[in-house]
């Protein structure tokens, strides 16, 4: 009987998730106060946790994906992030935003993964990237994109080039570029995640943009 009820609970959960799934926005959800949902989730309210999960799963997945460049691994790490959120939610103290806490867990897991797999490739910013035969520059792609804005292949090519450029940044610069320029977070929100002052976020972001522009040969025309 207990097993049957447990199964029914999961079936009902799936129905709720499928029917009630919120459509994710292109930009990450606004950092509204999640206090009420967190308070309920702390008491064991699974629905409250699911709401938080649905709200942040895609931004977290994208954050990790942009850091690692590996979609499959990003999904695995996102799962692990939310498992840790669920099992440790009673330890969450409102010193910072709930979203910052989730992002911090995701960032730490990603950092450990990258360190273990030696994915980190530290490249001096002055190292010239050899131009492969047939490779086009990002500026050329953007120029073409303005002529053919609906061309999905060009869109994909642009994203591929940008991701390659991001992969070559130092981890600290990767994080600020992803959080601020791709995900649209403010200096303050990014500072809460990265555990540094907002002015440091601005400083790192400026260096990150400068380095990324140089990698993508933005100033060579």
């Amino acid at each position, binding site marked *: 009987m207990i097993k049957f009820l447990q199964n029914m609970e999961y079936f009902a959960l799936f129905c709720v998730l499928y029917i009630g799934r919120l459509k994710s926005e292109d930009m990450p959800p606004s950092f509204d106060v999640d206090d009420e949902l967190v308070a309920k989730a702390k008491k064991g309210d699974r629905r409250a946790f699911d709401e938080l999960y649905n709200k942040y799963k895609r931004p977290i997945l*994208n954050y990790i994906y942009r850091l690692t460049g590996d979609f499959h691994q990003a999904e695995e790490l996102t799962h692990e992030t939310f498992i840790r959120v669920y099992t440790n939610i009673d330890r969450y103290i409102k010193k910072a935003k709930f979203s910052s806490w989730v992002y911090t867990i995701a960032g730490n897991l990603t950092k450990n993964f990258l360190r273990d797999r030696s994915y980190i490739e530290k490249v001096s910013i002055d190292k010239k990237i050899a131009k492969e035969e047939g490779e086009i520059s990002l500026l050329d792609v953007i120029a073409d994109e303005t002529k053919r804005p609906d061309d999905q292949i060009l869109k994909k090519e642009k994203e591929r080039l940008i991701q390659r450029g991001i992969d070559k940044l130092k981890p600290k610069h990767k994080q600020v570029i992803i959080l601020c320029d791709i995900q649209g977070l403010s200096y303050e929100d990014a500072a809460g995640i990265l555990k540094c002052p907002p002015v440091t976020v601005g400083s790192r972001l400026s260096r990150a943009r400068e380095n990324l522009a140089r990698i993508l040969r933005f100033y060579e025309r």
Partner: protein
Amino acid sequence: MNCRVNFKDLSRYTDGACTQKEKERIELHLKECQECKQTLARLNLLKASLSSIAPVKESESFDFVFNQKLKERLEEEVSVSLNEVLGKAISKIRDAFVPKVPVLVRVAVVLVLAVAVFGGYNYYIYSRLPFIETISGIVKVYRAPAARYIIARPNMRLREGYRIETAQDAVVNIISRNKYAARIKEDSDIVIAKLDVRNGNHFTKFDITSGKLMVNTTEAFKGSNMSIQTPACEAKVVGTAFAIDVDKPSGGTTWLGVLQGKVKVTSQGTDVYVNAGQKTQVEPGSLPDIPTLLSDNEWKLIQELYQLGEKPQVVLLVSMRANRVEELFKPAPLYISDTTPRTIPTELEAIIRIINRAIEDNDMGAHRFAIGRLEQLLKKHPNPRYNPQFLMFIGSYYYYIGNYEKAIDTFDRVVNEYPDYSLSSLAQCAVATIYQNNLRDKKKATAGFEELLENFPDSIDTVRARKFFKNLKK
């Protein structure tokens, strides 16, 4: 961009993070400067490209897999009581033995096992006691249970309660099973007040009445701790290399200098932390002095610690002074010890000696030859343990022969490839200093010092960076 507006200003401007005054200054400048206008346009284009990247969507099974994983994780966390596990194990063993083996055989097996376990435990404890590695001169050990002095000898195990007295000109080296190495110098009187080993960690206390003690802990010391009690203070170490000198005639005035790590010194209820490159002095009944930097002579003396324990075969000799970047540019000597077994290729050793001679003879041809060979060999024999030291040496060597661009490239490699290396902050400082003084590139010097302050905020090299920014404001 050689304007009063730099890239950082434009970056903050596009983010709306400037003050009103800054915004007006930038906008005024943009009206006149085509270069900055173009830079801003490209920056906006880059931002737009980044923000227009479509977010990836999770796979169809994402939620299902997450729920499965969460369920499994929660089930794993259900704890099984130790008693149940032990009970099951014991009953399995009993069931296996009871019907088959006669009682006498069982009793004999248990006795043998008990003796083996007891003997093994005693050996385990014995083998973890510190022992005397080498002795020079007369060293006496007083053993409390026997109430007599004996002359110390190599390989002698030391226990809690032993008192070690060294005569004039005597020195004794003590090793504690890959945890630490200690050297007790002449005219010393030290008691091993505590010696406890628990779960592989060592908890040691020395009482020093007079004399000099030097201690170098290894990486395996993590989890252990050591305290030193003198007539003036108590010093606690967790993982470090330091020297302590207790002066008996003055009633036990204690001098402590730290080579690596950090030591907590307590006296009269006040704690003072002495960091690497610093010293403190404590008089009996007084508070510890505020730590100050080691003098050049003290620094040279304390480097004797490199001879204790696991001797590094390659060490770049730079101090912990605020102007150590100048030492680096001399260039700083690379010390190669003659201990065995060798872990560095002999060809590298030979080339370092050629370079040292080329410096003495001022031979440019030999310099160029040696530096080329050195870089080739580093590529052929990469060794993460010694590469950063060699790279620092190569960087300072390029500076010495006037090739500033290569010097910067090499120091940059240290910062990027070995960010956790203890001298990475010095490498970053060297980059910024070369831009400032030799290449006269104020913008890159500024960027270099900013990175130093951001990435290595606690390093001694930030003193130079702060001085640079202070002069910039004048």
